[in-house]
């Protein structure tokens, strides 16, 4: 490897990266396209379908964690009830479809219901702060979990969407058939990319700035005309909507939805994804989902079997020690390392020339 090689690569990628820098949303599309390739791999025999499902989980968690990042990263608020809303999205969609409603209507209904609950929590958050808010949302999640396991409408241990998801009334996609499962995977990636773009547009707009202003100094925010009521509500409604979309994605892909798995552990895992991946970073959130869910299940499990979770725990602690602001900041170090390497190679060239 030498400098010429590196500069050649830079020249090749130059116009491409300039274009991406100009349109940041395009990077999400490129990212999504690359991820879509995963849908092909099992058909070529390069990957098993179980692995694809784990990556599907990662997209679901990434969307959910993006919503939580709006609370934790931007608004300085916390929610321990995230899992409840993922469950609402997944179970709600299934129940409404089983009632005979079309998929699209079910989605709209589920989003409206959990959005309203989110708004109520937002109102509540004006009265309670910090650890008290955490406890309050913990019990919101707990109430939702109890509802899912106790109310007979959710069908005991799990609820199944018979015959798959019917899009626009005529495209039927069922988890049973392999080709359709890949289609569903592509659909999840598309939804995730759309949610990433939506998130990016929100945080780069007046709303994102207002949320940050509110969390850093309430007084200054108010003096600038930022209403705490409005933006607390916005933050919680957005967070619950993202979580609910995560749940809807779960229902779409797995089509068999357990009633018991929407507990506090999941909420905590999603918080961990935000913390490990990176506050306020969209790619960081995906990276967090990958580290927390992907690494133990994709890599370590094959290597180490059941004790893999111990290692993933240690790994997460290491990440937090070395990248306290999120693992996404490794990118800064990579860039630094690259320019250092380039300088050294250049030096070699000049000394060789002498």
């Amino acid at each position, binding site marked *: 490897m030498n400098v010429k090689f590196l500069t050649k690569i830079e020249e090749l990628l130059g116009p491409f990266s300039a274009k991406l820098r100009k349109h940041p*949303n395009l990077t999400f599309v490129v990212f999504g396209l690359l991820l879509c390739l995963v849908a092909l791999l099992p058909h070529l025999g390069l990957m098993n379908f179980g692995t694809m499902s784990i990556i599907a989980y990662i997209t679901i968690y990434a969307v959910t964690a993006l919503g939580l990042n709006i609370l934790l990263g931007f608004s300085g608020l916390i929610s321990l009830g995230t899992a409840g809303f993922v469950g609402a999205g997944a179970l709600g969609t299934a129940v409404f479809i089983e009632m005979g409603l079309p998929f699209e209507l079910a989605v709209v209904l589920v989003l409206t219901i959990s959005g309203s609950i989110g708004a109520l929590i937002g109102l509540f958050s004006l009265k309670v702060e910090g650890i008290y808010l955490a406890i309050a949302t913990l019990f919101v999640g707990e109430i939702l979990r109890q509802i899912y396991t106790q109310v007979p409408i959710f069908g005991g241990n799990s609820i199944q969407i018979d015959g798959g998801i019917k899009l626009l009334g005529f495209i039927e996609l069922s988890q049973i058939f392999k080709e359709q499962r890949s289609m569903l995977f592509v659909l999840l990636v598309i939804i995730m990319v759309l949610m990433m773009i*939506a998130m990016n*547009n*929100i945080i780069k*707009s*007046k*709303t994102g*700035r*207002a949320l*940050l*202003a509110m969390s*850093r*100094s309430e*007084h*200054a*925010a*108010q*003096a*600038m*005309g*930022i*209403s*705490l009521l409005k933006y607390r509500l*916005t933050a919680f409604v957005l967070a619950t909507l993202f979580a609910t979309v995560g749940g809807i994605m779960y229902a779409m892909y797995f089509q068999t939805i357990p009633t018991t798995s929407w507990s506090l552990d999941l909420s905590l895992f999603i918080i961990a994804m935000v913390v490990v991946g990176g506050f*306020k970073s969209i790619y960081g959130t995906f990276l967090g989902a990958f580290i927390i869910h992907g690494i133990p299940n994709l890599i370590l499990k094959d290597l180490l079997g059941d004790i893999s979770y111990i290692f993933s725990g240690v790994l997460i602690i290491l990440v937090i020690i070395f990248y306290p602001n999120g693992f996404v900041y490794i990118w800064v170090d990579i860039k630094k390392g690259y320019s250092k390497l380039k300088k050294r190679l250049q030096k070699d060239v000049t000394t060789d020339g002498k």
Partner: protein
Amino acid sequence: MESKKTILELNKVSMHFGGLTAVDELSLDVKEGEIVGLIGPNGAGKTTVFNCVTQFYKEYTGDIYFQNHDGDQVDLRDYKVTDIAKLGLIRTFQNVELVKDLSILDNLLIGAHHHYETGIIQHILHTKKARSEEKRMKEKAYEILKFLKIYEIKDFYVAGQPYGILKKIEIARTLMSDPKLIILDEPAAGLNDQETDELETLIHQIRENYHTTILLIEHDMGFVMNICDRVCAINFGKFLAMDIPKNIQKNPSVQEAYLGKDE
């Protein structure tokens, strides 16, 4: 001066915290285009006055009137704290209150918050209207940044900037809201002599270029006496005197408040 309109008028304003009277029947007025200083020893109630005017405290008695953009007198009590900026009344804080993990430019855009007309749906969809509005606000911010000579560092984070720059950013943010009256809470605190001189010229320029009125609290007496058209002195929340700087310096009750009484 007499012919000019009154932009802010306090009429027997009092504010109590439990048994403590922080502001005691204070009356003062600020005329359009003036630079007025509010002085007093520590704990005299200066910041409390500002908090009453900007409606952070609602429990005051008496009346505070403000002349809005249309030239009408309005009772500020009728407005919520978040609506004050829209009226054209904007303030800075004693301890600089900026968003440290946003760029300087973004911090300025927060100052224009209430000027935005597009909503979150339009922002998510990135509509043409939302984009052009954002662009318009940015151009306005560029102008202000150039005026304050901090345009070159507009994309840097606020965190890590020297104190003098932070103070400038906060002033720049107030300008984003098209203010009629800017309330500055100790603008020169923590600045060195050169920066203080710079601030003096800057405040004069702001008045000329942006046609604003300025009300400020400051402990640096040299600064206050140089810059202000009129100075209002208070002690223990009570009005002592309001006059041109030269007369305030000679006023026996002001001297007594600062230096104590001759026995």
